[in-house]
């Protein structure tokens, strides 16, 4: 199979590879691999970085093949970072910043001149360029190098950075935008003047063939009921708040529930809660899925999600979700699927936990509803079909003017 427009499709992302962790990066890889195996010419343009904290050059520059996908890696240059920190603090605090300061903030972090120059010189090879996520230098640069070939996949969050003028101009000038969820699209419509072409495509989920909760319990020596959070522990993911809420809930007595955390990053567990909160750190994908299947419920405390793979992973394992309702995406999925409960404060969190722990039949029904929801909307076949349709129609429209 090939595209109806001549040339290949290029994904542009800050990091790429089987070793790279992160929801947006994983989706790009899975999408590129599936499109390639379906016969669509696809390339990935990315940097040599692996770690998104240091942005150190890890992979060798040049062309490589990763699971059948052609990947072009370009070295990273680092700014001094003084401006980035000072201006970034102002942006985070919601203080006004000028356009030139915003540009300075963006360009003073990691960047890759070679990637930009490659796109400048060779964008004719591609009928469509899909940069992701919106906030990174690579996305801004790609959209700047060839805006009318760019279809943004923003993975947008409702955060202060999304309100910067530099991104308003970027969203306005591209060929099209594909969103992961309806709330993300709604947010973009509120914040920006979008191009005529925009569509909710969603993200696809790999469906595990089997779950073995017992294996997880045996491997990690965990018995008794527990709730789980599986994912990165970063600011905005609100894991510290989850630990605090759960710690207070557990300290109230009357429950033997524990909280299991998996994933990369630091989390502070106060000494008083350490007996009830177990941090396993990074675990394999298989272990994570088995852990989700073994849990009473999955907690999603994040403030900002554009899709939330954790919700989908949990529902595929037929486990209900207790999610933070202040995140529009989490609230939307929970509402649409009937696969869990949304909380807004510590009191609701505690009551929600009690309901899910005390009513196994209800929890099981919610888990089943969640799984049906994922299978009905978020399998890879459905997502690829929607994505390919957008790309093809928009590329042909662009060629025909």
């Amino acid at each position: 199979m090939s595209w109806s427009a001549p040339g290949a499709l290029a994904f542009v992302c800050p990091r790429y590879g089987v070793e790279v962790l992160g929801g947006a990066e994983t989706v790009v890889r899975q999408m590129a691999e599936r499109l390639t195996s379906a016969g669509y010419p696809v390339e990935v343009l990315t940097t040599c970085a692996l770690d998104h904290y240091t942005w150190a050059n890890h992979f060798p520059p040049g062309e490589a093949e990763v699971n059948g996908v052609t990947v072009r890696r370009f070295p990273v240059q680092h700014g001094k970072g003084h401006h980035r920190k000072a201006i970034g603090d102002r942006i985070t605090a919601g203080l006004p910043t000028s356009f030139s300061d915003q540009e300075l903030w963006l360009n003073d972090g990691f960047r890759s001149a070679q990637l930009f120059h490659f796109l400048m010189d060779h964008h004719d090879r591609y009928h469509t360029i899909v940069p992701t996520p919106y906030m990174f230098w690579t996305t801004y640069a790609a959209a700047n190098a060839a805006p009318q070939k760019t279809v943004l996949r923003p993975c947008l969050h409702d955060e202060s950075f999304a309100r910067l003028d530099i991104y308003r101009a970027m969203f306005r000038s591209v060929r099209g935008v594909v969103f992961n969820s309806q709330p993300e699209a709604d947010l973009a419509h509120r914040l920006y003047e979008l191009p005529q072409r925009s569509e909710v495509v969603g993200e696809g989920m790999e469906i595990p063939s089997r779950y073995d909760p017992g294996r997880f319990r045996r491997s990690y020596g965990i018995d008794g009921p527990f709730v789980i959070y599986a994912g990165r522990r970063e600011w905005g993911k609100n894991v510290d708040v989850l630990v605090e809420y759960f710690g207070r809930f557990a300290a109230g007595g009357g429950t033997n529930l524990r909280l299991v955390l998996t994933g990369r990053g630091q989390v502070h567990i106060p000494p008083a809660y350490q007996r009830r909160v177990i941090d396993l750190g990074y675990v394999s994908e298989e272990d994570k899925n088995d852990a989700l299947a073994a849990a009473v419920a999955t907690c999603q405390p994040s403030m900002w999600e554009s899709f939330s793979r954790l919700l989908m992973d949990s529902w595929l394992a037929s486990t209900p979700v207790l999610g933070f309702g202040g995140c529009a995406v989490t609230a939307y999925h929970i509402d649409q699927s009937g696969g869990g409960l949304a909380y807004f404060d510590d009191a609701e969190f505690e009551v929600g936990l009690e309901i899910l722990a005390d009513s196994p039949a209800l929890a099981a029904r919610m888990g089943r509803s969640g799984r049906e929801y994922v299978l009905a909307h978020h399998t890879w076949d459905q997502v690829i079909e929607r994505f390919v349709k957008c790309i093809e129609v928009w590329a042909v429209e662009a060629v025909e003017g």
Partner: protein
Amino acid sequence: MRVLMVSPFPPLRDGVGKYAAQEVAALRAAGDEVEVLSPLPCAAHYVEDLKHGLGPFRVRRHARRYDRVILQYQPSHYHAHRRGISRLLSDLGLLMLFRTTKNLTVVCHEIEYPSGWRGRPDFFIERMAWSRAPEVVFHTQREVEAMEQMLGARPKRVVIRAHGEYLRPHVNEDRSQARRRLGISDEDFVFLSIGFIQPHKGFDRAVRAFASVPSEHARLFVVGSIRTEVPENSEYLLRLRRMARADPRVFVIEAALSDEEFDRWIVASDLVVLPYREIWSSGVLERAKLLGRRAIVTNVGGLAEQGGPGDRVVGTDEELAVAMAEAAGGRPGSAPPGIIDVNQARSLMRKDAERIRLGRSGLDQGADPPELTSALRRLRGLSRVQTTVTPSPRPAIGPLLTLVKRFLRRALGWYVEPAMMQISEFQGYTAEALESLTAEVAQLRADLRRAQGRAEESGNEVESTDDPQTYERGPIEKADAGEES
């Protein structure tokens, strides 16, 4: 050939950077291998601070590896100040660079000529620097003459190159398509003044002259954004908006435009109006030529020479009014009646004046309080306490002096160094504390401003006339000022 382009570069929104990117593309198309050195972080291969006298040495260091060096010259990238010791040092640096780099081409976009007595050292050094530049590209002959006249310098080789030589269109649309996308009626005759909003662009002259265009189907769009957030520019934007309120056919659209949008506006227009008060050459005029749109330009810098055969050069505001009226197919007359009455005008005056006062006091936009910012800048400017010995520059006894100093440092190090470190740390922590304080005060001021705004709005219904020119997609219509929100 290996070429080094010294210039700001995309994705920065910078006119010189965009010019450089198009030149890089043309050089590569001709088979050259091009790398970029920029004074600002961007998609350049190398980023260096090019100011403060040492900058040109950094260019020189890179230049050795290339067959040719092209330097896009704009004063603000090479000089931190307009005069004084700092300017003298950066002029000396440029003199060294221009004199010692044989394969250098300087593309001159703008020059700040020193004013006052011609015997001043900065005058002398700048004249020497430009006289020794191996090759300088200007966009008009007028600029060459200005250099000779104002500086008494003529570079070794002068090239006049059309500003638009490397330009390529960013859109492939006709007038109707562009208008459809911008929501402009095909029936209207559209004047366009586009670019960064700054007083020297003279967009106010276009609005004033447009009042004499009698046609009801004429429209004037002033489109652009503020490049540098200084009160002068913000006040100018306010002024333009205020002027636009008096004529329903005038639209001020403040937007940071992409290259495509910029070209789309030009394609959608019938006539580009560039009533600049001062400029050497205009990138907008080149894009208008490239996209086949006529222009009216004022007779400043090299614009008269840069304009094409269909363009019209005017000297005064009266000539501008006549030119605009004639272009729209008529003679100067009275514009349709204005849309605000005296009471509304008074209210607008009070509101805009208040905004300007707030802007100047630093309250607007939550700007940093000036005294704190200044103290912080001075504190940050202090270098950390040195713990190494600087070699003595004295020719004969220098090495001996350095040796003695090193000995003393080592002998007293155990006693002095902890104190030095404490001073350095204290300096750093104080700067940090001041930074937080600055941010907090700015936030408080912004809150105060918002509170004042709310109080003002609740007490005055005419306040809803603010920003009537807000740009919306779809057909552009202008409601009565009293109804706008």
